[in-house]
């Protein structure tokens, strides 16, 4: 019994030590465009964003970013994404995300004359087919996102280029 406990503790310590090595933080910048269309609010624009990401065991990743868009006034988004990526230099990824949009947009008033809320939330999927990384950082081009949101909204998002540095 003692031997089993000892082996288990050693295994845990080894695993923990190993996992410490496989957790990696990164920060990134991106150029992106967003189109959010719903019954009561349309937000759109091209813009830039910055975020923080973390990778677990080289396969699992999570990231959070803030973005600003221009074209239909100034709109902003805060997005949290999590998903799976392939190991290796070519490391395409698939993520689910949830985001909050606020700022300027074209409003269609509610029937009673009320203005729609100027913050809309959404959930969606994102794919990063052209993602490449090494031990120092990564680049990703043409990431595509699609989702649904408030007021029966749909959004399309495209990230032209994302570059990240690991630390």
């Amino acid at each position, binding site marked *: 019994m003692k031997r089993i406990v000892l082996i288990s503790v050693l295994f845990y310590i080894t695993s923990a030590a190993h996992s410490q090595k496989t957790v990696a933080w990164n920060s990134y910048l991106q150029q992106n465009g967003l*189109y959010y269309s719903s019954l009561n609010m349309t937000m759109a624009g091209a813009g830039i964003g910055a975020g923080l990401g973390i990778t677990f065991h080289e396969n699992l990743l999570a990231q959070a970013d803030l973005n600003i868009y221009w074209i*239909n006034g100034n709109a902003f988004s805060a997005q949290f994404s999590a998903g799976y990526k392939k190991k290796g230099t070519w490391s395409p990824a698939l993520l689910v995300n949830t985001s909050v949009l*606020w700022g*300027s947009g074209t409003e269609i008033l*509610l029937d*009673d*004359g009320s203005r729609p809320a100027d913050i809309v939330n959404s959930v969606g999927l994102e794919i990063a087919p052209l993602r490449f990384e090494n031990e120092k950082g990564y680049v990703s081009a043409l990431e595509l996102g699609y989702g649904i949101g408030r007021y029966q909204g749909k959004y399309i998002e495209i990230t032209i280029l994302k570059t990240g540095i690991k630390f």
Partner: protein
Amino acid sequence: MKIKSLYFLIGLGLLFSCTKEAPIIENKESILSFSGSIEKSGVYQWVEQLYDIHINDTPLSNEGYPPGELFPSGHLTRSAVVGAVAGALSDMGYKADTIQLGNEPHIAYNVVAEQKGALFPEEVVLVACHLDAFYGGADDNTSAVAAMLEIARAARSFSFARTIRFAAFDLEELGSVGSTRYIEAGYASDVSCAIVMDLIGYSSAEPDSQKDIFGVTTPDTGDFIFVVGNRNSSDAIQSIISLDHTASISKSVGVIAPGDGTYFMSSVFMRSDHGLMWYKGIPAIFFTDGANYRNPNYHKISDKPETLNKDFLGNNTKLVAAAVALLAEIQP
């Protein structure tokens, strides 16, 4: 920790993401009384008369304005309608002025008449439309001129705190020439709010008859009137939509363009005589049926009175009248 902070911010944002209710409307009975005095049949009679005048008029020279699919520049008329509108306003008891602005070959003739306000005569509510038209232009823009004339007729029997100025602008189809020259010459410096109408008589009950406007999702069925504003006129837009909702005057959809309304994506909502007003910061409200995003006869010879919905046009005129009464503060 960073992710927790982000979620905290998101939650905080959603907590404050409530809708903003329309302002409370005072003096609703008087507003609805004025709106109710509009005679729908009178509006349509004006459409038929003005259409005939346009269709029998000689088109302007289109020198310098090459024709295009949406721009049949060789078929623009206005001369005879200028006289007809001025004459109609005079017959109602107004002092109608025809203000000439610009030089040949495209002098703009804007027809203007006022009803002085009882309490704040220096504050002007401008009620405007353009009087030039391609072919007969039943919807574009005879429908709006007819509505303006009927509102002007009805206004003679009521008193308002602010001055109401009726203006029929010339040469809108050549790039809002008449209204631009009017504003640049300083005639609009006393305008506290403007109501501009451009195509208000075409509707369709067919599904998908209303196309989305430049990426902005709109209801699919084209059986409503757009009431469009920007941040300077958002309260008025809310009040008009609220009034229509409670009194069932017409069927309206309120649109508020972001900021001053001049951003690229919402610039399509500036396509009439209020465009420069938005640039200049003058609060302006735009009534339209959606033009080429709904009406298949837009800028075509087929834009005839029989293609209009008489009831829709009459109801929209009543709604515009209610907006005039609201903004000019009709007296009990």
